[in-house]
């Protein structure tokens, strides 16, 4: 990734120093806002001319707030910076890359970042998220320009040939979905972005929307041209106020620049985009439930078929894709299907932004081509647990993902390999637990979560989840253990095969994997277990 800032000319003169401070939500929660103010204040006090550029985050969270300064031959990073460090940074001449205990050198050569393959997330932390000039200087809108010169079928073919699959979790081939919408006749068609990133252990959608919103807008616009849709919605969770603000402003800027509206990039074709907020319902990440919610109703799932691609939002043909899926489209159009397809393994092509979370020493975003193993991610990138204790279990794929023990850590990040191992890759979130975890409590929580978040439409999920909590409680309490065991397995079987959607249908994964791989946690003395369960 080129390290040149959009405002390189000012720093070349030597009089104004360009300093980059993230305004991404995690960085802000760690003090980036205060650090930014402290830098401005200290600069004013010392008579230094500083231009502060607020960026997204590169996703190296143990180093946030990560402050970067523009030097003659690239950026120099310092982190994690607290307000108390600011005076000493100035003292050390950090504006000119001076030595300091927090100096990390060029950000691109931090091993965690240097060993990544950032395709979709290339601009995160690099550009000013709300500068169209910056975005364009980093390949922005080249994909839309390419798409604008193609007939719709060719755009769809490019996406199909790239091998891109839905990054929300279901991994359905994106090009095939788009082709269905293209081939379905309809006066009105829609593009809907699923930004209801509800899985615990995931934040790549948020990082992208906060750090590179035009990338999502461009991807959705390309989808609009590809299938003949003139209107798009981003269904965003309320828990992401910063992403909401950034995305809303970016949409307004794209409008002003003629990149959205009645005549997109001079093509004569229209595409309007609107952000809608969710209201704290995990189930609305399920695409049909999301559509119900967008239509202003309870987020109860719909029977499929008909598929949303044929009868989706307001009964019209609709493309529903995740943020990262749309955001991967511009680079495919810019550099060609073959470029993207050459990354990855097996049927998982391209790259996946993986999120290292939970009890992890170096948590953050790792975008790598498919094929990297869980072990590399957990130890080489993540550096083991934050607590310093051994890793006992990881949950991959959100609350519906299986809990895996160490014996499965050599599984490569690949949709099929994970499915074969009895798990799922989902949205690429990895939650790490150390050896203090109580797996019976985790299994109980999975059922409890399902009970809280069930939409109530089908019985296995609505009732089964509550019965599941009760059975696990009795099992852990040691009440006729053998019976509870078979009851729990029978119940999970019913939920697995009898639920209408993935919530009830997949919640048996964390429950049964905990039971299979960590049976000792379900057979503890009753008194201990009762305390842990509450």
């Amino acid at each position: 990734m080129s390290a040149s800032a959009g405002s390189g000319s000012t720093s070349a003169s030597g009089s104004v120093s360009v300093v980059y401070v993230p305004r991404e939500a995690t960085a802000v929660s760690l003090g980036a806002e205060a650090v930014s103010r402290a830098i401005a204040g200290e600069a004013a006090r010392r008579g230094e001319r500083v231009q502060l550029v607020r960026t997204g985050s590169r996703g190296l969270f143990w180093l946030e707030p990560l402050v970067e300064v523009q030097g003659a031959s690239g950026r120099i990073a310092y982190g994690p910076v607290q307000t108390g460090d600011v005076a000493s940074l100035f003292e050390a001449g950090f504006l000119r890359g001076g030595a300091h205990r927090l100096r990390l050198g060029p950000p691109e050569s931090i091993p965690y970042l240097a060993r990544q393959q950032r395709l979709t997330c290339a601009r995160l932390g690099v550009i000013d998220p709300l500068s169209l000039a910056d975005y364009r200087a980093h390949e922005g809108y080249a994909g839309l320009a390419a798409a604008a010169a193609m007939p719709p079928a060719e755009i769809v073919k490019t996406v199909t040939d790239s091998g891109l699959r839905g990054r929300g979790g279901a991994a359905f081939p994106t090009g095939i979905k788009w082709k269905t919408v293209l081939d379905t006749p309809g006066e009105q068609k829609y593009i809907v972005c699923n930004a209801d990133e509800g899985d615990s252990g995931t934040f790549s959608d948020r990082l992208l929307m906060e750090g590179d919103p035009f990338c999502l807008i461009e991807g959705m616009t390309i989808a609009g041209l590809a299938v003949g849709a003139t209107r798009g919605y981003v269904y965003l969770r309320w828990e992401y106020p910063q992403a909401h603000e950034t995305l809303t402003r970016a949409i307004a800027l794209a409008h002003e620049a003629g990149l959205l509206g009645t005549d997109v990039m001079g093509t004569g074709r229209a595409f309007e985009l609107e952000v809608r907020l969710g209201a704290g319902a995990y189930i609305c990440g399920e695409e049909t439930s999301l559509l119900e919610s967008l239509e202003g109703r309870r987020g109860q799932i719909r029977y499929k078929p008909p598929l949303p691609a044929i009868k989706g939002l307001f009964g019209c043909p609709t493309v529903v894709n995740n943020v990262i899926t749309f955001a991967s489209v511009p680079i495919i159009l810019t550099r060609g299907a073959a470029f993207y397809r050459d990354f990855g393994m097996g049927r998982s092509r391209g790259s996946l932004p993986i999120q290292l979370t939970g009890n992890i020493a170096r948590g953050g975003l790792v975008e790598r081509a498919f094929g990297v193993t869980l072990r590399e991610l957990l130890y080489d990138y993540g550096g083991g647990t934050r607590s310093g204790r051994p890793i006992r279990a990881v949950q991959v794929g959100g609350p519906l993902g299986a809990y895996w023990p160490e014996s499965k850590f050599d599984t490569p990040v690949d949709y099929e390999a994970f499915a074969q191992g009895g798990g799922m890759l989902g949205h690429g979130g990895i939650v790490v637990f150390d050896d203090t975890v109580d797996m019976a409590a985790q299994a109980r929580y999975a059922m409890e979560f399902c009970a809280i978040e069930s939409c109530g439409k089908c019985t296995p999920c609505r009732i089964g989840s509550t019965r599941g909590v009760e059975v696990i409680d009795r099992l852990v309490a040691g009440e006729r253990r053998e019976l509870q065991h078979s009851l729990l397995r029978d119940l999970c079987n019913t939920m697995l095969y009898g639920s209408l959607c993935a919530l009830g249908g997949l919640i048996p994964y964390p429950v049964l994997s905990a039971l299979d791989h960590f049976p000792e946690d379900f057979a503890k003395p009753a008194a201990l277990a009762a305390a842990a369960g509450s």
Partner: protein
Amino acid sequence: MAERKRVSIPIRPAPGEDLPIEERAAVLDAVERHRGLAGALLPVLHAVQERLGWVPPKAVPLIAFEMNLTRAEVHGVITFYHYFRQHPPGRHVIHLCRAEACQAVGAAALEAHAKRALGIDFHGTSADGRYSLEPVYCLGNCATGPSMMIDGQLQSRVTSERFDELVRGGASGPVAAGAAGVAGMATGR
């Protein structure tokens, strides 16, 4: 020819007639601003809650009337989504993450501490009306948990001590307004 007499039969009071002026204005304004949108109910409810801090059950008939929906439909939507409140919030709203990534770094202990410190359970408001405590299932801050949001401000690595600091700090108002956005809901009443 017999004379026909028109009789008007009072069916019920106009919807929203019994609402306090402020609440009535909030609803009418929210409806007005979103009337043109397709599927506008969620944006309307968000707007009402942003202004009042909650969606008063007594406002349901007016919302339904204005949007040409049944009261059951509006009530159904409000009760389906965890974010919409049917009770007024405390002056500060704390959203505490309960999800797995935070559990892995001590969310359960923090939850117990928070409930003890505030003397309330989830969905409760402290007796002095200062704090409301809500569970949230992931704030997307999973690499630096335990996470919570207080008055719309995201917080990382929240220990029990840090929680106490934040809550005391919260009493003097949110630190920065920058990221408040939609969650600036604690100013209600």
